[in-house]
């Protein structure tokens, strides 16, 4: 009897310290990032911002989306308020709560709606990749301008 009790105590002592099995426990939000294509933002006839799903088969990165946006609208009844320029290469860096876009444009190449197009497209990709919707976007134009320091939000993304 005493031996049995000692054995039980020893088992409890040693067995109680290993990795215990457990039930199924939640461990955070699911990863995200898959998408059938990338969402670009253009302007309709009434001057309102409109999302357009470009079926690329995958989400891709912010620079890829910016390159598609700068390339143009295609044949839709939408238009872009970003002046078509030569290069479409955009450098995007993300800091906590902030995306910095270095665009090959001057402030004169874009209307305020055009700036919204850039901001919404970049922020949309960021959110679809799992980022926060409260992230701000800063657009740096090639020529020095106070607009380069503004931290912007997209009117369509709350």
């Amino acid at each position: 009897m005493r031996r049995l009790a000692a054995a039980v105590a020893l088992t409890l002592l040693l067995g109680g310290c290993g990795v215990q099995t457990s039930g199924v426990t939640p461990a955070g939000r699911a990863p995200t990032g898959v998408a059938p294509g990338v969402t670009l933002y253009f302007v309709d006839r009434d001057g309102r911002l409109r999302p357009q799903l470009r079926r690329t088969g995958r989400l891709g990165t912010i620079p890829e989306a910016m390159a598609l946006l700068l390339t143009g609208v295609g044949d839709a009844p939408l238009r872009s308020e970003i002046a078509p320029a030569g290069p479409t290469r955009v450098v995007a860096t993300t800091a906590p709560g902030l995306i910095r876009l270095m665009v090959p444009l001057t402030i004169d190449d874009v209307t305020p709606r055009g700036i919204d197009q850039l901001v919404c497209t970049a922020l949309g990709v960021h959110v679809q990749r799992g980022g926060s919707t409260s992230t701000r976007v800063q657009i740096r134009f090639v020529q020095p301008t106070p607009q380069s320091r503004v931290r912007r939000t997209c009117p369509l993304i709350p």
Partner: protein
Amino acid sequence: MTRRLPPRGLRARLVVAFVIVTVAGAGAAAWASARSAGSALVDATQERLTAALADQVAAVAPQLTYPPGREALERLRAAAGPGTLVTYRGRRAPGGAGADLVTEPVRAAVRAGDGIVAQRIRARGRPWLVIGTPVAITAPDGRRRPSGIEVYAVRDLSGVDDRIDGLTRSAAATAALALPLAVLLALAAAGSVLRPVRDLRDTATRLAAGDLTARSPPQGADELAQLTVTVNEMAASLEASMAAMRRMQADARRFAADVSHELRTPLSTLTAVVEVLAASADGLEPDARESAQLAITETQRLVALVEDLMEVSRFDAGTATLRVEDVDVAATVRAALRARGWLERVELDAAGEIRAQADPRRLDVIVANLAGNALRHGRPPVRVAVSATDERVRVEVTDDGPGLSADVAPHVFDRFYKADAARARTPGSGLGLAIALENARLHGGDLTAGPADGGGARFVLRLPRRREDA
């Protein structure tokens, strides 16, 4: 099951109790800390592994085509590392070795929910962490919906297990370190308790042996010191009462000696007068003669009583001396009986000659008292048997009387003891058996009373044949 006896000594019990308490306390503390450290380690590892899987999936997901083809699933599986299973609407990506441990509860939770789930299981003798997660599609405005892609990963936790075992071992070692310390402390505590106890025991032993001056010095102010003080007070009180009692006894004995001594001179005169009275008794009236006879008898009793009292006083004062001679015990006994005219009333069994070193006068007193007692209180036949071994002489006196009852037997040698209160007036002085016992002891022998075979009383005198100091 054999039941072992608990340790008897105070020291052993203290040591065992100390060791049990200390080791149990240290063990419990070490066990608790090892357990909480172990569970923190498990939690941290689990968090790291699930976060790593989520990061790996999130890093590769934007590059995957959707809906995913076989190649995309394969790419996702490769990105998530070995032991991973990727499915899309029930389709499995090829490969994924080691992922067969994924449990059904995890699958169900992944299908039903929209977050990562984890479960620790034990399989193939080692612990595993099963992680499952759906991959979500997030709209640009932040709304999420399931994509149908599910990722399962099985991660080995034996590294954590080993580290927890290490923690447990070091905890046990720490608890074991307390053991010698506990033994030392217990021995020190036992010593401090046991020393006064041993002193007290020694004092009590000396008190019991008759040394009433024995005391223990109290040390400190604890309960043991109080006990020591109490024992000392008890010993002092005992010593005082014993001294008082001895003084009273001595006073009583001196008084008895003085009284009997003072009575002797007037009694001598009285005896002489009574003898004269006896000589002229024949010429008296019958009534006066009867009174004279009564006075003679009582005077003789009074003389015997005073003589006995003086004898007892000599024993009490320690002044009784033994005049040892080489005597024939059988002849002495016969002479004693003959001198009192009892040879006809007593059956004497004393064959041959039995030599012994004894005081003939005192032997005569003993035999006379025993035989007289048997003749007075018992019924005939009264038998006196003398026998001897190499060492001892044995004189046995038995009678056929009612014997000694259980409440009388212990007191027959007491002074003035009367077995029957109603029979207060007996010819004896009430001191005879007491004097016989004192005489036997003076010889270095013994006198005992008990029941005889036939139902009467039996008195046995045993005397050594040779004086040891002679």
